[in-house]
């Protein structure tokens, strides 16, 4: 199935996430077909689909999916109602994938507790990355170990194993590193990292963040003054380079 292996596709470094069951709801069979093949190509194997509100409820109750990707306009109802119905029984993450792009619709979707909102047309890559990010965030307790070049990070124990030495991570270092890891291969802004460490709307923590980054580098980098895993993007943020990941 599918056209071929995507060059850009995320290499399966978290197999357990690929086992997650994805519920796809869209009244357009062509879209279901396309999204299914995109997800299949990326390694997701458990995909269930529904073409209507009623069918979606039925599939949801019989298959117990782990994440839902919902269209807003359905022939017999709308995706927002469907999300509300799902929320009554489950806290699973919900992503809206819809042709309705107006800001108000976005707010409606997010107010209903949706985790993300993607407006059509979308890049397959974008959908895959967002599903990944949300799954990682929602099912993170299941991902204990990160292999970096030069060390291993065990998030469940909050420690770094480098050359047989064990370095414990402080709570802030743990949060910062985890945020970088969830966005591995992508730049994360200073603001997002400060938020991860100090909560909502932090300001003036840039220097503290630099200090924490320095300490994290001392723990994870073979040569902290020449980092290879935790890179600085000047003026913007930081990027965690994970082997086998772009």
């Amino acid at each position, binding site marked *: 199935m*599918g*056209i*071929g*292996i*995507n*060059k*850009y*596709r995320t290499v399966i470094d978290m197999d357990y996430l690929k086992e997650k069951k994805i519920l796809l709801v869209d009244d*357009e069979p*062509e*879209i279901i077909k*396309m*999204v299914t*093949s*995109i997800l299949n*190509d990326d390694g997701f194997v458990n995909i269930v689909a529904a073409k209507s509100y009623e069918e979606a409820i039925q599939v949801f109750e019989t298959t117990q999916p782990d994440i839902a990707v919902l269209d807003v306009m359905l022939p017999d109802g709308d995706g927002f109602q469907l999300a509300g119905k799902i929320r009554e029984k489950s806290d699973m993450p919900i992503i809206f994938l819809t*042709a*309705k*792009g*107006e*800001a*108000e619709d976005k*707010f409606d979707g997010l107010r209903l507790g949706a985790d993300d909102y993607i*407006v*059509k*047309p*979308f*890049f*397959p*890559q974008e959908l895959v990355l967002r599903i990944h990010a949300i799954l990682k965030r929602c099912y993170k307790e299941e991902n204990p170990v990160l292999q970096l070049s030069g060390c291993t990070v065990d998030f469940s124990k909050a420690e770094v194993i480098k050359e047989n030495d064990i370095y414990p991570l402080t709570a802030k270092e743990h949060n910062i590193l985890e945020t970088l890891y969830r966005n591995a291969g*992508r*730049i*994360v*802004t*200073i*603001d*997002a990292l400060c938020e991860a460490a100090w909560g909502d709307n932090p*300001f*003036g923590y*840039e220097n503290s963040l630099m200090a924490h980054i320095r300490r994290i580098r001392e723990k994870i980098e073979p040569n902290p003054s020449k980092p290879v895993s935790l890179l600085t*993007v000047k*003026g*913007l*943020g930081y990027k965690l380079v994970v082997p086998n990941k772009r």
Partner: protein
Amino acid sequence: MRSFSRFIKKHLLIFIGIILAILILDVVLFVLVFQGTVYNLGSSSPGKVTAETVNAFTIQDGVYELRAEQENVLHDLNVWGMVIDAGGSVVWSYALPEEIPLTFSISDVSEFSRGYLKSYPVFTEKIDNSLLVLGYPQDSYIKITSNTLPYNTPFTVMWYCIGIFFLDILLLFIAYTVSKRQISKNIDPIINSVSKLSKGQPVNIQAKGDLEEIGDSINATSDILINKDTARANWISGVSHDIRTPLSMILGYADRITHSSEATGQIREQADIICKQSVKIKGLIEDLNLASQLEYDMQPLNKETFSVSKLLRKIAVDYMNNGLPDRYTLNLEMDTTRQYMMNGDRALIKRAIENLLHNSVNHNPDGCNINTTLVQKSGRISIVVTDDGVGVSQEKLNNILNTPHYMNSKKNTKELQHGMGLHLVRKIVLSHEGEIKISSENGKGFCVELIFMAENN
């Protein structure tokens, strides 16, 4: 408003003209109606007839003789006559009615000489030492019996007339002013609404009285305009909605072919072109939809206070994470100790800045350095996006700055159809009461500055 007072002044002149015309008409009518009477008074007035009669008498030894022609005159006028001597006895008479006595006392004479004798209007004239009395037919003349006036009455009447004339003029002027003010009071809101309407703003006037109908029509017109705008915005939003699903499929599959290992290099290149063009269409329909929403005030701004520096970092990082080719560099310049807070619709501001970055990337396929500078000075935040790319000629820049976008133009020339992206940026900035400055030179890059009010923090 000025044309309206001119209109009123013109009416004042017409008003004065009409009053003058009425006065003239009054005089003419008076002359026409009373001309006969006045003439009659002249030719055969009782006074004249009496005087002629006196002259037509011949008196010899106390015997009075009237000439036959004058008797005929009296006969024609149906007038009787008599002469009373100093003793009160009638010494001559002509066609004297029976009920008239033949002797009179002084008090009798005094009484009838002022008015009527047995209800005949009589006129008297001295003749020799006697009195000539002519009696006109009953009901032929009215005699005013109490015509005594104080000496200064004619002057008082004259002053009274002049006074009345000016008082009338004053009253008319007051009536005119009041009615003008009344009309203005009613018409002003209508004029204001019409001028608002001509700028495409919705109106709702509560006109009362005579102008209620006009007010209702204007309200109805406003409703029609709003409905048309709504219909147009809905139409655009509907079309852009319907394009999204098929475009998803085109973009999705083209992207997969681009990255497919089964396709040959040429096929992948072509798929990449489909991808890039689909992305262009995606951006276009999003811009079109947003611009029409802003154009017709369909979308209220979701204002919040946010940090522009954070937003810029987020935009830059998203841009880089989404794979900005190496031939482009994206640089941010700002004072990192500041927050650059502003109040506005974060999503729209983001869109505006993204559009500027898009423009720099799209118009410089060979790459360029994009520099974004953030400055806060005297309560204003300025976001400057510059690139060192190809830029545009002075002529084209003027075109961008001065010609209306085709969305707002009736003309259909190709020159008008410059980018949707910049048009949307301008709309967003204006909806935030901001300012936009664009400068460029051929071969020397493109520079756009957006200025917003800073939020004090």
